[in-house]
């Protein structure tokens, strides 16, 4: 009894677990239940029951309510889909003037809007792409094809790669100094020489369109949210869901609204990239000291002056960190958008992976990683750069970079011209190294992969089999064996114990949505894969983080490694694992583990570092040993922050599991991938995406609530 009084929470948790397991054992697997293999749900089974909701027929197996809840939300994807189609094809038909046919035509409003938007985006992308690579489309947009035929000289020539490479080096120099400039120059030269110039510039032009637009939208919405509580409240849930939604689930509805291609990809990229910009703008504006705002007001600023002359310049760093986020999200979307036909490096990567040409995939992946690091370092350097004073410099000193760039342009053009004479019959290598005419290392890599397979095949296979048979399959069976009611009791109970009624209600709502959707089984599989990944990642991350923390140099090194790995688009991680483990669940899980270990390590180190040095000294003076200090002081205090790391680890793991569908899994991700090629997939894709987001949000809610409480209890912030 005394023990009970001392640890009331512990007993509540034990009680919850007892109830959970009792439910698991009490509820038998119904005889009609079977785990439906992919695609099977489209075939009508005589055992299935149906119901009609809002005119939609929904089929389901008549399960025991305790075992699996009936998919009462089965109408939702169908309904979303039909609504979208109705919006696109039948809603508000209006007369629109058609430039091409010179007549009025009846078109639904939404269709017209999306088509115009699409045309605008296409124009922007083409414009930038042709500045970088040359082409006709932009001039055509202002004139006509006939005019081009009459004036064959009118073509944007494109910039020679030498100019772009030198230009990026100068920009890098201006932002971050000599080291960054050398890196930029070398990276661009590498890309050119190894024949990846064209796809790289395609990807870059995509980012050059998507990032500024996302920045403008994000900044405006961030300002609006800062100004008005109501806007903030309206935006908040969307921001929350968008942060945990796998990027690639958003692709599906975009397909319906905007079709296939770069323009659709840009629009959808904006939808993904705007939320972090909003959040960071809001954060930055909030962090402006109130006295600075008052100083602005007392200087007689009106609202406009206050925003643009006081608030935004003061919040400069946070806003630029937002720009960094926007660029990185745009880049990873540029890669993933290959699924809906965006051109560039992502497309080449996808193609190579589809053909199982690991060498080609590695080449594209390397370029992607290089550009990612370059973009990340440059935008971060921009954010961290302090304003300099230019008042007492002369014209040349002030404009040396632009003058130098002007010189580079002249030299570059001269070189290209010289090249056109020198390489008279072949390709002008000083203008652009054509795709696949550069140095290719694909053969070398492919041989390497073959060698690895020949040499280690037996061991890899044995490891694979062991993992799948001994660990993964039993784990999956256990997850699938959970009756729905038991899962809900567990989750809601945990919510109640951690955050009280409010938390319990929130997680209950999120879980019910998934349970009532037709994909509960898939969600369980996703959760099992994510759980496995998270457990291993956390063990690795916490161990590595703690070990590195013992030495200042290791700490710094590890954080840098984390930074670099985090910039890679998740898709890139699939290349090496496919190279080593082929197409199996193991590959996906290893990619998940590698990807999710990044936040686990980073947050462990940061958490340990955030322990105040005063406490450190106080502990040392009480005569603790290193281990005592670690376990009695540092871990307890760093634990809340480490739990936030766990939260991130879960989100990262979920993202990777979903992307892993590309290799072949049987979870929600696989269904999203299928929805991509399904004409009526928009509703399914979106609902599935929301399901994944909700899995993430359940954990997010529980962990965050716990961390907030714990932090308050410990008095740290």
């Amino acid at each position, binding site marked *: 009894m005394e023990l009970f009084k001392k640890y009331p929470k512990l007993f509540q948790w034990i009680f919850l677990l007892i109830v959970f397991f009792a439910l698991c054992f009490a509820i038998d697997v119904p005889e009609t239940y079977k785990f439906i293999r992919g695609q099977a749900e489209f075939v009508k089974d005589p055992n299935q029951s149906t119901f009609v909701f809002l005119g939609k027929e929904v089929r389901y197996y008549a399960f025991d309510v305790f075992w699996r809840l009936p998919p009462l939300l089965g109408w939702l994807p169908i309904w979303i889909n039909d609504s979208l189609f109705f919006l696109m094809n039948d809603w508000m038909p209006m007369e629109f003037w058609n430039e091409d046919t010179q007549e009025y035509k009846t078109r639904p409003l939404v269709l017209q809007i999306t088509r115009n938007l699409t045309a605008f985006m296409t124009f922007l992308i083409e414009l930038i792409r042709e500045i970088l690579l040359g082409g006709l489309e932009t001039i055509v947009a202002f004139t006509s094809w006939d005019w081009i035929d009459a004036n064959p000289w009118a073509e944007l020539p494109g910039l020679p790669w030498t100019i772009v490479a030198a230009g990026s080096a100068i920009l890098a120099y201006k932002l971050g100094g000599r080291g960054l400039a050398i890196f930029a120059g070398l990276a661009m030269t590498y890309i050119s020489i190894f024949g990846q110039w064209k796809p790289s510039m395609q990807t870059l032009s995509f980012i050059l369109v998507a990032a500024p637009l996302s920045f403008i939208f994000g900044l405006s919405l961030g300002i609006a949210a800062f100004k008005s509580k109501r806007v903030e409240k309206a935006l908040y849930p969307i921001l929350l869901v968008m942060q945990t939604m796998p990027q690639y689930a958003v692709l599906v509805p975009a397909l319906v609204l905007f079709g296939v291609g770069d323009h659709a990809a840009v629009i959808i990229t904006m939808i993904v990239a705007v939320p972090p910009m909003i959040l960071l703008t809001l954060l930055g504006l909030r962090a402006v000291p109130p006295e600075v705002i008052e*100083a602005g007001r*007392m200087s*007689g600023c009106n609202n406009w002056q206050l925003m643009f002359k006081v608030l935004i310049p003061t919040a400069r760093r946070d806003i630029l960190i937002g720009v960094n986020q926007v660029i990185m999200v745009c880049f990873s979307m540029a890669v993933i958008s290959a699924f809906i036909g965006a051109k560039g490096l992502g497309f080449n990567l996808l193609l190579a992976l589809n053909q199982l040409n690991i060498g080609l995939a590695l080449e594209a992946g390397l370029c992607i990683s290089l550009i990612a690091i370059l973009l990340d370092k440059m935008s971060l350097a921009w954010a961290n750069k302090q304003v300099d004073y230019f008042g007492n410099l002369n014209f040349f000193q002030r404009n040396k970079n632009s003058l130098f760039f002007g010189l580079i342009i002249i030299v570059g053009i001269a070189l290209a011209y010289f090249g056109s004479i020198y390489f008279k019959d072949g390709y002008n290598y000083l203008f652009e190294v054509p795709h696949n005419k550069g140095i290719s290392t694909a053969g070398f890599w492919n041989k390497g992969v073959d060698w690895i397979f020949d040499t280690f095949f037996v061991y890899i296979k044995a490891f694979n089999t062991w993992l799948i048979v001994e660990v993964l399959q039993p784990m999956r069976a256990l997850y699938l064996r959970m009756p729905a009611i038991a899962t809900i009791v567990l989750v809601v109970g945990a919510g109640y114990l951690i955050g009280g009624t409010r938390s319990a209600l929130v997680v209950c709502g999120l879980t019910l949505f998934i349970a009532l959707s037709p994909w509960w089984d898939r969600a369980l599989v996703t959760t099992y894969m994510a759980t496995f990944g998270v457990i291993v990642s956390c063990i690795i991350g916490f161990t590595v983080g703690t070990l590195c923390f013992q030495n200042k140099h290791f700490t710094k090194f590890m954080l840098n490694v984390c930074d670099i790995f985090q910039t890679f688009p998740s898709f890139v991680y699939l290349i090496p694992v496919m190279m080593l483990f082929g197409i199996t669940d193991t590959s996906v899980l290893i990619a998940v583990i590698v990807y999710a270990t990044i936040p686990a390590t980073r947050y462990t180190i940061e958490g340990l570092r955030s322990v105040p040095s005063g406490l450190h000294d106080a502990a040392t003076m009480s005569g603790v040993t290193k281990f005592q200090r670690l376990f009695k002081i540092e871990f307890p205090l760093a634990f809340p922050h480490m739990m936030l790391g766990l939260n991130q680890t879960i989100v990262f793991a979920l993202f990777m599991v979903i992307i892993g569908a590309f290799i072949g899994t049987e979870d929600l991700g696989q269904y999203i991938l299928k929805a991509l090629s399904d004409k009526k997939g928009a509703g399914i894709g979106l609902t599935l995406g929301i399901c994944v987001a909700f899995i993430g949000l359940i954990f997010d809610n529980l962990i965050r609530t716990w961390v907030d409480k714990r932090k308050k209890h410990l008095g740290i912030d």
Partner: protein
Amino acid sequence: MSEPVIKCESVYKIFGENAKTMLKEANGNVDAKTFQENGCIVGVNNASFEVSKGEMLVVMGLSGSGKSTLLRCISRLTDATGGKIFIEGQDLLNLNNKELIDLRRNKMGMVFQSFALLPHKTVVENIAFPLQIKGINTDESINKAMDMVKLVGLDGRENYFPRELSGGQQQRVGIARSLAVEPDIWFLDEPFSALDPLIRKEMQDEFLRLQEKLQKTIMFITHDFDEALKLADRIAIMKDGIIEQLDTPANIVLNPATEYVRKFTEEVPREKVLLIADVMDSTTTEDIGDLKVTKDEIIENVAEKILTQEKTVAVIDNNNKIVGSINPTKIINTVFGGRKNNN
């Protein structure tokens, strides 16, 4: 006397949702406790006072006493919940946004505790900021700002960024910025609290020098009673949003109105604060010595001279005319007498 520059008539500032209606129902009888039970916090409670031209009013109070809130009501950085505020006869609370901005651009300057400089602008650009906001062109505003740089003694550092300056220097920039538009009214919100003691003293002296030259109408907020005594023409002591006492430094030290005020005055070295004029008898006796002291001397400076006298000492004004007398025992009584703890 001419019209007061700042005039407050029972100003209230109450934070909370139903503040306005509750204030109306309270009918001028605001009790902080009952308000707090209803979810409202009383910031300023029935503040009435006037500040005349060229006068420096120091508002002194501990943290949470509502002194900064009062200042923000008068600069209208927050809107007062009740009462009336007049700036040179204009009803501040009835100004529309444009008139308010006009007022701030031309009549008011403010200095902040944490300096509140714009991190992306140099010293001279920071100082020129209010001028540029007004619409003055760059060259003219920079020229004007350079005068201000010289006034606060930062010449040679005008192209530094705030991050490159020490706290004292940053506050000099803050002072220069607040003076750039040549305001008549100068608000200072704990301007020296964030500075080290030595720098603080230096800045206080500098501030007195500036005020001697500029003769602004000043509201100065501080939590430091010694600072208040040193600078003020008059001091308002606040507690829980209420002005406990508003009087000259001498009167506050000699006649504290409430127990709360008395606690502050206990530790004050009176000989350093009081003038001869504050303690002299305005009657002159026959039995007067040869020594004469001016009435505006601080006691400390002349105490030794007076205490060596056996007779009463004559007090003269600036024109050498005898205006009163002071007895050595009076000095002893003033400095050592009348304090509870010294018994």
